[in-house]
């Protein structure tokens, strides 16, 4: 087999995980829960509208925490970022309130529970981080395990993505830079 063929095969092959792969710890996600469901149902639309801000915000929270972890590793630069830490805490509080106010139809219950689990993990990391902010040695010792937890949350968000409901890890709604001609965009205006 030529190298190019081997590489093509590798492109198409299913992912295999190493024995120590962190994703083995990943909680099972609801599979294809929207496959046979019409998403123009009012209940799903209502669910999507209320859960999407939470989904997006959890993504941004773990991104901010990961960024702060990087700065914490690089030592002296971290001291100036207290405001950034406070913004994360504020977003966690806001998400905590919002996610428990989400209206959840029965069909979406497994999906919602999965998101709650992801958020709980996020809250645990955030609280641990916040509690140890002034103990640099403890904080640095925890960074690896917190990073690992956040990676799990990121993977969970990825698995909880539901394109039909507009739940995606990356916001492509404004189509950056060079993303070609998309399908016509629709929007609604609430007055």
């Amino acid at each position, binding site marked *: 087999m030529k190298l190019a063929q081997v590489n093509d095969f590798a492109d198409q092959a299913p992912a295999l995980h190493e024995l120590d792969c962190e994703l083995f710890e990943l909680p099972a996600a609801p599979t294809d829960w929207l496959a046979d469901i019409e998403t123009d149902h009012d209940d799903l639309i209502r669910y999507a509208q209320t859960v999407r801000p939470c989904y997006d915000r959890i993504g941004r929270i773990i991104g901010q925490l990961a960024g702060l972890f990087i700065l914490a590793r*690089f030592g002296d630069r971290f001291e100036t970022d207290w405001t950034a830490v406070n913004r994360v805490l504020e977003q966690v509080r806001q998400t905590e309130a919002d996610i428990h106010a989400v209206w959840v139809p029965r069909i979406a219950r497994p999906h919602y529970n999965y998101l709650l689990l992801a958020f709980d993990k996020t809250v645990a990391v955030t609280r641990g981080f916040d509690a140890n902010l002034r103990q640099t040695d403890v904080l640095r010792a925890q960074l690896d395990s917190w990073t690992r937890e956040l990676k799990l949350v990121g993977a969970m968000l990825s698995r909880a993505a539901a394109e039909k409901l507009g739940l995606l*890890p990356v916001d492509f709604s404004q189509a950056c830079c060079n993303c070609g001609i998309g399908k016509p965009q629709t929007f609604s205006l609430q007055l």
Partner: protein
Amino acid sequence: MSQYSIWVMEYAYVSQCAVSSVIYGAHNQGIRKLPYCYVVIKSKDRIAMVDVGYNDKEYGRYISGKFGVENWHSPASVLAPCGIRPEDVDDIFITHAHFDHMGNIESFPNAVFHVQERELTKWIWAMSLPDRLRYMMVATDPSDVLRVADLARQGRLRLIDGDKHNVIPGIDLHAAPDTHTYGSQWVHVRNDMQSQSADSWVLAGDLVYVYENIEGMGADKMYIPVGLALGSTTNLVLTTDEMMKAVDYEMKRLIPVHEERLKDVFPSRITASGLRISEICLASGQKSLVN
């Protein structure tokens, strides 16, 4: 004597890209092919890259459906004609944090990544903003920060604060704050190793998409910024002039990686995968990949 060979490697493309998205204000100017590429810089004993593309497993199906991105191939496949495996790459210079430039970090298990610190800190800031300001997050993937955090854990992250000369011998990184993104950077290869190089190349990332961004669209030569500036178009235009100055205003030496017409300017070929390799220059003793 040139120290480095440089190749622009296409890893996917959009067949029908609106011209207005790559050239500021060029509305109703039709469509064109837009390649997605990264750059390989190779010396006898070192392999570097500029950007890493995106990971099709993460977003591929969605992107291809929504934006028409076609023919994505993995780095292992794309780099094979160079005789390079992803694990051979030593250094990677990330020009900016958009998913299509840094979304495939995990494919390069041994490389050290060089990122502007400002790109990271402003990214943290952008993620902290209220939902109504989430435009600031456009085309960035929060999970990419996690991947960068993992690089930091492994000791494979270098945060660059502003310009950095000789980040590896003969290669300089130049900050371009508040341009296409908050902490973009461009790469200057001084291929003769001289501080006042007579053989230099600039790899522009997304600070310049296509040749019109450098030479304009009409008879009057002028810079026209790219279609997306999270910073300002003023900064984009001024940075374009800085990059041109670095190559003594020799336009050919400023490489816009999204430019399909690189094939008309540099020796190029299409691989069996249907992707283009453009050979920008060859180090002494390096055989051509395209002839």
